[in-house]
């Protein structure tokens, strides 16, 4: 395994390690689509927080293709897929008392979503 030495630190820090994957994978959703964040409760690693599960939102951006944390955290490969920014209204997430103006925007992997 490579050892991080002092001389490569500046380059390492400036380059980082993007989770973006250069694979041409078709997007299932486009901005404007209405989607449902799946109501799932995996015991493994996931970046689908409980507070959006089962909620309906709108695709705002398609960020492109990224490594999937749910598999990468368990040695199960990169499983590249699209990540989208999904907008949920505060009322959808928290009910009628929430501000009618406010929104929560969260980046979600394709697998976390289904058409609504």
């Amino acid at each position, binding site marked *: 395994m490579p050892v991080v030495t002092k001389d490569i630190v500046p380059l*390492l*820090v400036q380059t980082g390690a993007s989770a973006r994957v250069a694979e041409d994978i078709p997007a299932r959703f486009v901005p404007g689509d209405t989607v449902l964040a799946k109501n799932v409760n995996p015991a493994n*690693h996931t970046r689908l927080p*409980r*507070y959006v599960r089962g909620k309906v939102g709108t695709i705002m951006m398609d960020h492109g293709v990224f490594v999937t944390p749910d598999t*990468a955290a368990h040695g199960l490969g990169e499983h590249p897929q699209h990540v989208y920014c999904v907008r949920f209204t505060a009322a959808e997430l928290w009910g009628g008392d929430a501000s009618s103006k406010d929104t929560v925007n969260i980046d979600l992997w394709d697998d976390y979503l289904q058409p609504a």
Partner: protein
Amino acid sequence: MNGIHDLGGMHGHGPINPPPTEPVFSHEWERRIFALFIGAFGGGHYNVDEFRHAIERMDPAEYLLGSYYEHWLHSIETLLLEKGVVTRDELDQKIAALKGGH
């Protein structure tokens, strides 16, 4: 996993109380564990998803009581032990040696 890390929307965690200023690191050990994280990551010993998941697997009470960099220490120890990069004995012997050196 439905872990303690998944905090969004919870009540009862108290006020934020942001101080006007604070140092980048509060203790020397925070500097070392921060740098160790990048050093061991750059050395290919774990990926960031494994790193986050090892934090999520912490005991919930320990997670809430522990500071950010304590989470990092826990995660790096956990992963390096699980992957056999270091052993419990090696760490314990080193701790004993460091204590003896005081």
